[in-house]
């Protein structure tokens, strides 16, 4: 039987190329690791979404089961689970993350370096 919480998560993951489930929002992170993750993605300049699940215990449980990952934040890129900045940081250092992001955004350069005029 379909689980509405899981369906909601699957919809959110499908709708956002970079998605962070965290504690607090982009403007008001309520956890040091969530803040660190926001700062991490700000450096790359690609758009990303943060969904606050701090108070949503059933959704946190569903997320943990789906990813086999007990902690927040949880990062999805192009629908795939990548853990947190403990995973993404070393990937970035090894030069593995940028190609994944570039591929995810279809070769579009990040907004931060696009000149509009």
């Amino acid at each position, binding site marked *: 039987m379909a689980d509405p919480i899981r369906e909601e998560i699957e919809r959110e993951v499908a709708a956002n190329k970079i998605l962070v489930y965290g504690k607090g929002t982009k403007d008001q992170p309520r956890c040091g690791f969530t803040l660190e993750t926001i700062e991490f993605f700000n450096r790359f300049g690609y758009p990303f979404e943060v969904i606050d699940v701090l108070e949503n215990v059933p959704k946190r449980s569903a997320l943990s089961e789906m990813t086999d990952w007990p902690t927040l934040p949880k990062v999805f890129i192009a629908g795939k689970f*990548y853990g947190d900045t403990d*995973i993404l940081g*070393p990937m970035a250092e090894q030069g593995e993350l940028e190609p994944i992001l570039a591929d995810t955004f279809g070769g579009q350069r990040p907004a931060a370096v696009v000149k509009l005029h």
Partner: protein
Amino acid sequence: MIDEATLAGLLRRSIPDAQVQVFDLTGTMDHLRVSVRSRAFAGASLLDRHRMVEAALREARADGRIHALEIRTEVLE
């Protein structure tokens, strides 16, 4: 709050050859960075290495002895 010996002991229950270093990030021994080296990480993705460490520390996470944890892993040659 947890001490280094206890944390290393928990890790070695499931990762017997683990070489463990603990860094206290806040002076309260509950926000930690743990560095784990083991042969058991060979061939495992970073995600799976972290899952192994988290699984070993599950009870100390659940009872609050560890509040925040950064994990570094390295394959022991």
